[in-house]
């Protein structure tokens, strides 16, 4: 077998060695099942890619929901702050207008009565809100809802009929 491109070998040993190397280093060929295994590997890679893109889609959706919740929370805080400030000023204005009348009815302690009534109203709102969030209220709520549904069912079924 004559070398195509390598012309460095000049001695008989070099030429003989080139021929011997050509015989000793024969090209290996892929295994017979290489294509089958490759097809299976490609299918697995495709499935993995599908799972990966589904995971990324879910992750994107989750981030969108979180961003939405975040913006809703901020909106709620702004609304609460606005209501508080607006409510305080409106109450002050109302009290200034009504105070002479209240003083005539309730006497010198009118200011104390108004302050106590305001305090009770504020604490009631805060207490109700806190209770609504506590676990103690949930069983009561369930009982209440069950009672309501029992009470509503006959009417509902009557409507269906």
């Amino acid at each position: 077998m004559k070398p195509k491109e390598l012309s460095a070998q000049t001695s008989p040993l070099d030429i003989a060695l080139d021929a011997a190397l050509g015989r000793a280093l024969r090209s290996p060929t892929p295994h017979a099942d290489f294509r089958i295994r490759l097809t299976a590997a490609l299918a697995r890679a495709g499935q993995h890619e599908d799972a990966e893109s589904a995971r990324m889609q879910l992750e994107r959706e989750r981030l969108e929901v979180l961003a939405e919740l975040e913006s809703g929370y901020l909106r709620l805080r702004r609304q609460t702050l606005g209501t508080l400030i607006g409510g305080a000023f409106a109450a002050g204005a109302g009290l200034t207008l009504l105070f002479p009348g209240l003083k005539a009815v309730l006497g010198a302690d009118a200011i104390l009565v108004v302050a106590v009534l305001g305090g009770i109203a504020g604490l009631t709102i805060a207490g109700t809100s806190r209770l609504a969030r506590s676990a103690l209220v949930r069983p009561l709520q369930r009982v209440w809802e069950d009672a309501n549904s029992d009470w509503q069912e006959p009417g509902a079924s009557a409507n269906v009929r």
Partner: protein
Amino acid sequence: MPRAMATVAPTDSDILALLQSGALERAFALLLDRYEGKVYRLCCTMLRDPTQAQDAAQESWVRVWKALKRYDERASLSTWIYTITRNRCLSAIERRRELTSLSAEEFEGEAPALEAEQPDPEDSSELLRELVDLLPERQRRTLVLFYYEDRSVSEVAEMLAMPEGTVKTILYRARAALGKELRRRGLDDPSIWLGVRS
């Protein structure tokens, strides 16, 4: 003649045209037909183990398939595929090195001495392979691939990402080292090698 044209092996330009038209699967099938053997031989040369070479070749083709739609023609198809394959093989070598805690010289060493035990003189072909295995890794890799690729310097240069002049120099040194070792062992009679049977 349509029949004759059907038997002509597709060229890289044909495959590129398919890629540009979006026929990825057909292009991949033609790439596989064209480069399957070369990729496997490159893996065998770099990894020295047929099983690992098969795995590395498979991983390389999976990478090629995944990246095919992003192929941007900055490098030729063959260069691109060989680069992916070499990187896979280097990763495999790295993994193997981590597993076996082999020293760096094992794979990329600078000319370990040719200290073969005296092999069975009956099997000259085996002796030759053993001597080749004892060459420095760069020389061994280049020499083996040169014979695998039917003595094509340009093909070896592309597969190993080396200039052709460098490949020729390495081949010259590898053959000189082999000749020197054969002379040292008194096996420098050309008639011994002309009669080698594998």
